């Protein structure tokens, strides 16, 4: 189906009768995908590999794709290169260096060379530090664009989660996002969910 035809049908509402998944596929055809990322521009090979390991530890491959598969680190590199200002970029890169210093002090090696248990311990430690830093940092304010975090680990999580959940796989497979729901139900039943809310 041609793009113009799709738009015409959409304007009349008749396309909305299609099953959402099919409709999404049709819509996707009508938009050009952005050029995919090439080699990293800000992260060096070691930093890239470290960030990749860390992101995969946060959002691993399960029955749905993990951070690596959807290219989280390419997005991080894009943000470091084109979005962050100098101060944010320096803070982020210093955070990666600090990560290795921590693992050297505790385990005698780079983060990348640590065992998975040691890596997990390190993330737990960073999490506790982040929690202490953000304690009493004010209310959750309304608005779609949440305030940008300033500590390395919060920055890292911000970029990792953003990259993942706004990716096609993250949106559609993980969150079951439908571009055109076609209806609003304010009190629908939650499908069975046995996962406890994280702390």
């Amino acid at each position, binding site marked *: 189906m041609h793009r113009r035809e799709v738009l015409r049908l959409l304007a009349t509402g008749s396309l909305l009768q299609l099953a959402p998944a099919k409709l999404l596929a049709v819509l996707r055809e009508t938009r050009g995908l952005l050029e995919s990322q090439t080699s990293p521009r800000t992260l060096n090979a070691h930093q890239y590999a470290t960030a990749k390991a860390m992101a995969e530890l946060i959002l691993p491959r*399960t029955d749905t794709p993990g951070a690596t598969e959807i290219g989280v680190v390419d997005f991080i590199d894009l943000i470091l290169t084109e979005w962050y200002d100098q101060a944010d970029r320096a803070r982020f890169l210093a955070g990666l260096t600090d990560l290795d210093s921590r693992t050297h002090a505790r385990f005698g090696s780079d983060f990348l060379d640590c065992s998975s248990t040691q890596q997990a311990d390190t993330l737990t430690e960073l999490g506790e530090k982040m929690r202490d830093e953000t304690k009493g940092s004010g209310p959750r304010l309304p608005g779609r664009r949440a305030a940008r975090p300033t500590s390395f680990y919060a920055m890292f999580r911000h970029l990792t989660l953003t990259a993942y959940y706004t990716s096609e796989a993250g949106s559609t497979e993980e969150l079951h996002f439908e571009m055109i729901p076609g209806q609003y139900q*304010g009190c629908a039943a939650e499908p069975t969910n046995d996962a406890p809310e994280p702390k």
Partner: protein
Amino acid sequence: MSDENTFDAIVVGSGITGGWAAKELTEKGLKTLVLEAGRNIAPEEDYVEHVPEWEMKFRGMGDRQKLAEEQPIQSTCYACDEWSSKFFIKDKEHPYSNDPGKPFRWIRGRQVGGRSITWGRQSYRWSDLDFEANLREGIATDWPIRYADIAPWYDYVEEFAGISGEALGLPQLPDSKFLPPMELNCTERFVRSELAKHFEGERVLTIGRAAILTQEHLGRAACHYCGPCERGCITRSYFSSLNATLPAAEKTGRMTLRPYSAAHSVIFDRATRKAAGVRVIDTQTKAALEFRAKVVFLCASTLESARILLNSATPEFPNGLANSSGELGHNLMDHITAGGATALIPGNEDKLELGRRPNGIYMPRFRNVKSKHKDFVRGYGFQGGAHREGWNRGIVQTGFGADFKKALSRPGPWHFLFGGFGECLPNHNNYVELDKEKVDAWGIPTLRIHCAWGENELALRKDMATSAAEMLEAVGGKDVVPFQRQDPPGFAIHEMGTVRMGRDPKTSVLNTFNQAHDVKNLFVTDGAAMVSSSCVNPSLTYMALTARACDYAVRQMKKGDL
């Protein structure tokens, strides 16, 4: 003057009021020129509401460096994002100034459709609580109309635009001619019933009244709940001039729509003491052009209409056209916002929303309705609503790994927001003047804006935080957080006043039909005409006033009185 530059009517602006003026005047038989300063918009190319985040380079975070460079002011508006920033002006091309320490945030859209493409769509009738307020309190000047004068025109515009909402029968917020309301979600229903118990019916929570169709209406399709209306709507389910009134005007065959046409000034004919037409700068060629007409409607937005009149000074009107009162440019208002509270509301953890409802809750004004408040006059309404938290709650959590990921795949707790919209008092000292030293990209003098919140507004904001927190505590909310931000005037994007209506030509610029006291074929029907600001969203009232003024103007023309 060549025939091709001569019309029956000229409408300056193609936004929410310009669209209405275009529709009404052309349908009543007038050959009408609509001047739009910005570019044309082709919905099938420009609307981007169905472009998913993963097709956006910055995944919805916006091109930060570009926004900081080109749109430092505009990008502070939530709607000026990676998709919709093209519907906002480039700040560099449109400078303005304000007093040191008194910022005014001016959010603007210049394109066919104006800001009606990105507006919030909240649509409420004003009441006599609003129209009588100035007279009752001896503030500014009296409105020249009462609810009874405008009620039939609310009916008229609502029947065309399509307003969904719930009838409540409240005197302070008259019901519209409603399409079926959108649904409140479980937690909003819970909060509504709890508030009814705790506040004896004084604080009513209802679904927002919105210019969004909940059923097919006059050939426009019902909303399909994709969510981000500010990016456009290919099904034309929300009301904008681009989606509704301009196509109606186009259908008459009497509209000439001219984009890239920045109005410079109104041409005044000294012999007849009437407006002869409009001077325009073609923004592509920078050529100065003149268009003539029997009647001129300024619908350029509050501040732009004032600017055009200030820039139309003549020997007869040295301080701006139609300004014998000296009130032109004065009494600038905006709603005060940024006061409210948030909380988590326990319960309904097994329930969720399906679809993205482009609308929230509304709580009509409850202050100074039945009893008098000791700290302030007038009042505020609340907007907001309940939503389950999304994946981004995980950013500040400390978890990671498979269990963390699984938990984030489901929505989080119900989060509730009350955000106030408060009335701003008209004040002669909040005003704009022409800055001839500083011109825009087309050489047109810009505005110097002098505007600050007064004590009454700040007292309203304070009370918003207090009363919102009090309600969220009362309904059993957890982590209740009252907030007061210091947002400057302008940020509600409800700027009003500067060319006010009134009964007395000595104290007002426009009469009861939005007609300039001094220049009888000149009308101003956008937010500039407002005499007070109410606390409810103003666009529906602009629409009704515009349709009413067009009806009057055409009747006068037929009688030969214009």
